[in-house]
């Protein structure tokens, strides 16, 4: 009996080894382990075995069955692996073929620059506020210490709707509007569209954007203004950026300054981009003029503050090295797609 089982086992092994496809393995399974299979036949012959030998024989049959099954299983897995490997081989693609893109739109460079600026100042606790683009002369000029007959009010620069209403020439009127509301302290930026009577060319546009910044609180100093704008410049143009504050004059700030940043193209060595100076002018700023505070109902003996104004287009042109301002308003898709 033992020999017979061994024989079946050897035969099955041979058959498994000979099988080259999974269905042939199945044939082997049927032949040896199936209902009419050889091992079943052995079990059926158990009645002829002496009763005391039966457990032993039964155990031997089971062992043989287990051995064959495990061989079958192993062989099947091997075969499947080979088949999958073959399939994978067949499925090689040329990964350098062109991609299938979704059509995704692009944000205007002005907006990208604006969002960058907003991110920096919102992070420092500034609220983003807006004001009207068609504005009273009162807010655009008078409350900013620019009285009637001031050359800055000249028709050459300002679009007038009538003698009291203008297209705002700066975002600074938002300062006055926010201060008037009287909620202190103030930390705000006010981005928006402004208008000047300039003919369109590569560096001028009658409509452009500014971002106004205003901080009013107790004990605000010029040193705070310097520190704030230094953080801003480093965030916007990179951590190695240096800033330079130069005295300047604006009617609504005193002291006033213009701010240059070290040229981010040459790092300050001087190049064509910064006209050899190593510096690029980016904004105007200063301590809010005490008279402006008074006009907006804030006591200049208790509160001080600083304000700054940045040209958005200027930042976009500089940052993205755009050489003609007209491109910003042409809306040529080939231009917009680059951002």
């Amino acid at each position, binding site marked *: 009996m033992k020999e017979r089982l061994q024989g079946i086992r050897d035969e099955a092994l041979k058959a498994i080894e000979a099988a080259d496809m999974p269905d042939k393995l199945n044939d082997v399974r049927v032949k040896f382990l199936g209902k009419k299979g050889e091992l079943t036949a052995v079990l059926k012959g158990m009645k002829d075995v002496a009763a005391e030998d039966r457990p032993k024989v039964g155990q031997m049959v089971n062992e043989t069955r287990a051995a064959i099954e495990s061989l079958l299983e192993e062989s099947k897995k091997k075969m499947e692996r080979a088949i999958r490997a073959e399939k994978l081989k067949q499925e090689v693609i040329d990964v350098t073929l062109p991609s299938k893109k*979704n*059509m*995704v*739109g*692009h944000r*205007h460079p002005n*907006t990208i620059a604006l969002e960058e600026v*907003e991110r920096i100042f*919102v992070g420092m*606790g500034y*609220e*983003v506020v*807006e004001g009207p*683009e*068609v504005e*009273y002369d009162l807010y655009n000029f008078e409350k900013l210490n620019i009285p009637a007959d001031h*050359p800055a009010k000249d028709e050459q620069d300002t*679009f*007038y*709707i*009538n003698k009291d*209403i203008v*297209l705002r020439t700066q975002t600074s009127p938002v300062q006055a509007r926010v201060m008037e509301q009287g909620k202190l*302290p103030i*930390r705000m930026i006010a981005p928006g569209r402004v*208008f000047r009577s300039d*003919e369109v060319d590569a560096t001028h546009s009658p*409509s452009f954007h500014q971002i106004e910044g205003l*901080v009013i*609180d107790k*004990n605000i*100093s*010029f*040193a*705070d203004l*310097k*520190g*704030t704008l230094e953080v801003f410049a480093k965030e916007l143009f990179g951590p190695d950026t240096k800033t*330079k*504050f*130069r*005295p*300047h*004059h604006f009617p609504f700030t*005193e*002291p*006033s*300054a213009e701010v240059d940043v070290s040229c981010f193209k040459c790092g300050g060595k001087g190049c064509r981009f910064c006209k050899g100076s190593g510096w690029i002018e980016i904004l105007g700023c200063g*301590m809010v*003029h*005490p*008279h402006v505070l008074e006009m907006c109902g804030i006591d200049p003996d208790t509160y001080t503050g600083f304000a700054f104004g940045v040209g958005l287009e200027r930042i976009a042109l500089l940052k993205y090295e755009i050489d003609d301002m007209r491109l910003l*308003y*042409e*809306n*040529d*898709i*080939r231009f*917009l*797609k680059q951002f």
Partner: protein
Amino acid sequence: MNTSLSWIKAYVPDLNVTAQEYADAMTLSGTKVEGYERLDADLDKIVVGQIDKIEKHPDADKLIICQVNVGTGIVQIVTGAPNVKEGDKVPVVLDGGRVAGGHEPGSRVEGGVKIKKGKLRGVESFGMMCSIEELGSDKDMYPESPEYGIYIFKDDVEVGTSAVEALGLDDVVFEYEVTSNRVDCFSVIGIAREAAATFRKEFHPPVVTETGNDENASDYIKVTVKDTDLCPRYCARVVKNIKIGPSPKWMQRRLASVGIRPINNLVDITNYVMEEYGQPMHAYDLDTIAGHEIIVRRAEKDEKFVTLDGQERQMDDSVLMICDGEKSVGIAGIMGGENSMITDNVHTMLFEAACFDGTNIRKSSKKVGLRTDASGKFEKGLDPNNAEAAINRACQLVEEMGAGEVVGGIVDVYGKKKEPVRVPFDAGEINALLGTDISEEDMLSYFKMIGLEYDEAANEVIAPAFRHDLFRLADLAEEVARFYGYDNIPTTLPKGEATTGKLSFKLRIEQTARDIAEFCGFSQGMNYSFESPKVFDKLLLPAESPLRNAVEIMNPLGEDYSIMRTISLNGMLNSLATNYNRRNKNVRLYELGNIYLPKSLPLTELPEERMQFTLGMYGDGDFFSMKGVIEEFFEKVGLRGKESYDPNAGKPFLHPGRQANIIYGKDTVGYLGEVHPDVADSYGIGGRAYVAVIDMPKIVDLATFDRKYAGLAKFPAVNRDISMVMKKDILAGQVEEIIAKKGGAYLESYSLFDIYEGSQIKEGYKSIAYSIVFRAKDKTLSDMEVTEAMERILKALEAMGIELRK
């Protein structure tokens, strides 16, 4: 404003800096140097030479051979210049040197021209004798130079010395950007005062001595100022026995360095004093002044006047005139008249140094259409005290230069004298404002450098009259900061109460609009807020359309930019057209920008500014692609499932059969449609274009970022498909409205899956098929429950004349 370095050094003799150091330091102390030009930048190895001998060139009629003594020896130079003779002293550029350009005026070459020895028609030449043009200047600035040919020195220069120095070209000219508050810096003295303070050197302004003979000017001239509001001060002095001639070289050089052409001693003196003191002056021929009387008054209405440039000009009664006993002799502060101008035959002259109202001069200058150096200075608003100083300086120069005999005394009409302003001083507060710790002593030393006095008893700083920008502590703080150095002020961040940084809800909705538009393939454009009134016709708007009521700009750049837009489409259509013309395919653009709606016209209050979200596209996609973008946006800002579309939008610029108002709840929040082919044609967009406009204020009112989780479905859905036949003019939206209304509580969703018109269906009808999904949250629906709902739907559909396709 320009000055040369040498002119500044005349008042700050200890100044010893390079041009770059000067430019940097001046800029940092508040006198911004825009740039500078070294007059000798392109000049090299140029000496004074003297011609020893001239011979003819053996092989060229037009050339001569000169033996020139250049100090270190004799060099041979061949030249074609016609104007030299033996003994002449001339500028000579030696072999290996450089000149600025050719001998034609304006023929400067960047970087200069290198001069090397060479042969001219076989004769060796070791350098070149120079014309004034070759040295980078011209006859205008060096009137003594010949019309054509080599510059010839007067005998007072030494052979072998630098010709550049002899010509005063060893100088640097700075260009400053002077801010409007610093009127005093529109003068060389003003800049020099700043330079002295910046470099902590002594400042030596000109010392004006008393001038004039024993006579008195008031015997020669009477001055009456009628309009004192426009003329706070008028000073007049008289010079007789005038001797017109050239001004001295130093004066010519200084004038030339700032671009003023030397003319003769009298003109040069007025120009010189205007630059030096910042005070424009005028000279009249006293013999032409009727009655020897000056009257300052406003012009007659419609007065015509011939200025000294020979032009007749039109006045009005706001323009201030200088008149004599009979007639006008000058437009105050702008230009004198032809009838009283100085000629070569002048014997007695009236000098005028006055102070006029800056604003009036600015406005008059514009009205008359004449802007001069003088008006440019006056319009800034001058210090009346400066007028007297300037006229006395001019008379001093007349005497020094022997240009005439100055008559003693001055006729000075000066109403209310301008007094210096006193500003209370508080070092502690200045430090608090600046965030610094500067000693009181240092602050006072800065004030002293720039001519501010300190009254210790009153603890006040006294601002001199020429500084009319100093009124309060903040102004003093700026002066301290300038000379302490902005760079030396520390950098800190604001302390104090924390604030919340945030975007407004409106801005967040706009940000979402940008995100969605871009996800859907639209790129952001930007258009101007003003446009042409012709836009309305272009958009086929009827004459009575309220959109034609636009805010008009009084002084637009042109008609094309003359009204504030009331509709955002024009910019979009122009942008699509630009792209179409440039053959860009599949263009999708969006814009977020305001329209401006007047509450009434003419405007008495600010117009309403409404943010419009405008989308436009051509190429791939159609009406329904555009509709999809809108719905994606609505969903993202919390407007869910209540939008509907009314095809009766009545937009004349859209295709009559392909347009709809977008309705949310009961509000019309925008519209979309295909651009009317007539409109597309007039903009030059070929093919079909689609636009949508969303009125953002309405969206902001309705929008929310709040979300509530509704749970995931646990029970199976039941799906029923229906196919219907109906008249063509029944809208899918009407069918959906019925499904939504009658579907009951278990209705989950419905979607159109087929629409058909054609041979299978009778004429004038269409077939539409919907898939309707029912589901309950808490149980598996029974067939009966679904059937009941379906029957309600079908019944309502049938009532509309819709039949079910079996």
